[in-house]
């Protein structure tokens, strides 16, 4: 069984060899029973990497456990390769920020257009944006209660912004900024600061500290304050970390999945020397729908959890008074 498998793999590798793809020389040197499969797999992997390397950089290293995670290329990277220079280097170094800036420029542009042309008989764009705003309003007020209206602009913007950034990576040559930890951490720190500020504003500084101490009322609860206070502070600090890691992990995992399957699709055709118009099979295609689902769910989860943090901070006061 194993011999047959290795023979089969060998024939594939040989056909690859004939088609002008670099294969490591180690293959034919020591064809021992134990070594042969490992060698064959290694050279298969090398070939696939050479073929896919131009499109998906790092896909091969990922299998080895070295280098950075695989990633589909974006326009800024292409510009850096085509026109090497200081400007393109600088642009590529800032590509995470630039793509998130593109997203907010796009969103602002649409909102300004929809706001300028508003009328009692809404057009298509106005209808769409009104529907989005109403849905988000109902969702957030449903969680926070009528007093949560003041947070709707912030939380709704978070949802729209994160969702657009997530989906942006699915367009060819674009990049989701949320697949890097610095973007998600920035968003989570914004939420954290706003939640703490709202906590102080709603409860007063004394009420805020009492809330962190577990709002002690009886003697036993006052005795437990030294235990409760650090626990609550750590809990508060864990919130932005878990928020940002969740979004980052999901979106970067999704992008990595797409990149790996795109690389596999290219590697799968490498041995027949494919024509230029078909460099590989679109194996990543079914996963794009999965990615759409994750993008939506993760944006929703970020918004919902942020609103829960707001409600935990501000509903507290209503129990007291």
């Amino acid at each position: 069984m194993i011999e047959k498998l290795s023979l089969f793999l060998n024939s594939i590798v040989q056909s690859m060899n004939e088609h002008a793809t670099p294969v490591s020389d180690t293959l034919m040197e020591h064809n021992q029973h134990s070594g042969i499969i490992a060698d064959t797999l290694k050279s298969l992997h090398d070939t696939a990497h050479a073929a896919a390397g131009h499109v998906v950089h790092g896909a091969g290293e990922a299998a080895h456990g070295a280098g950075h995670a695989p990633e589909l290329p974006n326009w800024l990277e292409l510009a850096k390769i085509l026109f090497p220079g200081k400007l393109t280097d600088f642009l590529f170094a800032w590509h995470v920020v630039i793509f998130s800036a593109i997203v907010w420029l796009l969103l602002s542009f649409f909102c300004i257009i929809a706001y300028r042309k508003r009328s009692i008989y809404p057009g298509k764009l106005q209808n769409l944006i009104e529907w989005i705003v109403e849905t988000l309003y109902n969702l957030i007020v449903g969680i926070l209660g009528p007093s949560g209206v003041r947070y709707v602009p912030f939380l709704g913007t978070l949802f729209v912004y994160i969702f657009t950034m997530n989906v942006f990576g699915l367009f060819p040559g674009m990049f989701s900024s949320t697949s890097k930890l610095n973007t998600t951490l920035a968003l989570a720190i914004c939420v954290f600061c706003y939640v703490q500020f709202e906590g102080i504003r709603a409860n007063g500084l004394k009420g805020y500290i009492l809330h962190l101490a577990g709002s002690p009322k009886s003697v036993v609860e006052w005795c437990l304050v030294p235990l409760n206070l650090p626990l609550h502070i750590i809990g508060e600090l864990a919130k932005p970390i878990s928020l940002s890691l969740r979004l980052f992990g999901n979106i970067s995992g999704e992008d990595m999945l797409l990149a790996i399957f795109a690389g596999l699709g290219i590697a799968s055709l490498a041995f027949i020397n494919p024509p230029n118009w078909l460099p590989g099979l679109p194996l990543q295609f079914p996963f794009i729908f999965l990615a759409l689902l994750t993008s939506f769910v993760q944006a929703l989860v970020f918004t919902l959890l942020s609103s829960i943090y707001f409600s935990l901070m501000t509903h507290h006061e209503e129990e007291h008074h």
Partner: protein
Amino acid sequence: MDAETAKGFLLPMTVAVAALGSGLGLGKAVGSAMEAMARQPEAAGKIQTGMIIGAAFIEALTIYALVAVILLK
């Protein structure tokens, strides 16, 4: 077995174990939510919101494992 090989075996296993646990948890959470929704369709919206939040917390554990694996790689 050298350290790299051990890593190559263990890192995917880490995610697998984490995914097993959160899969069980998610199954229980979503199953109960579905039952509750079937029993009380008028409360479906509230149950769904709660379910999504709970599912996010459960799923986060797998994501932590994934992030740890990516960082350790």
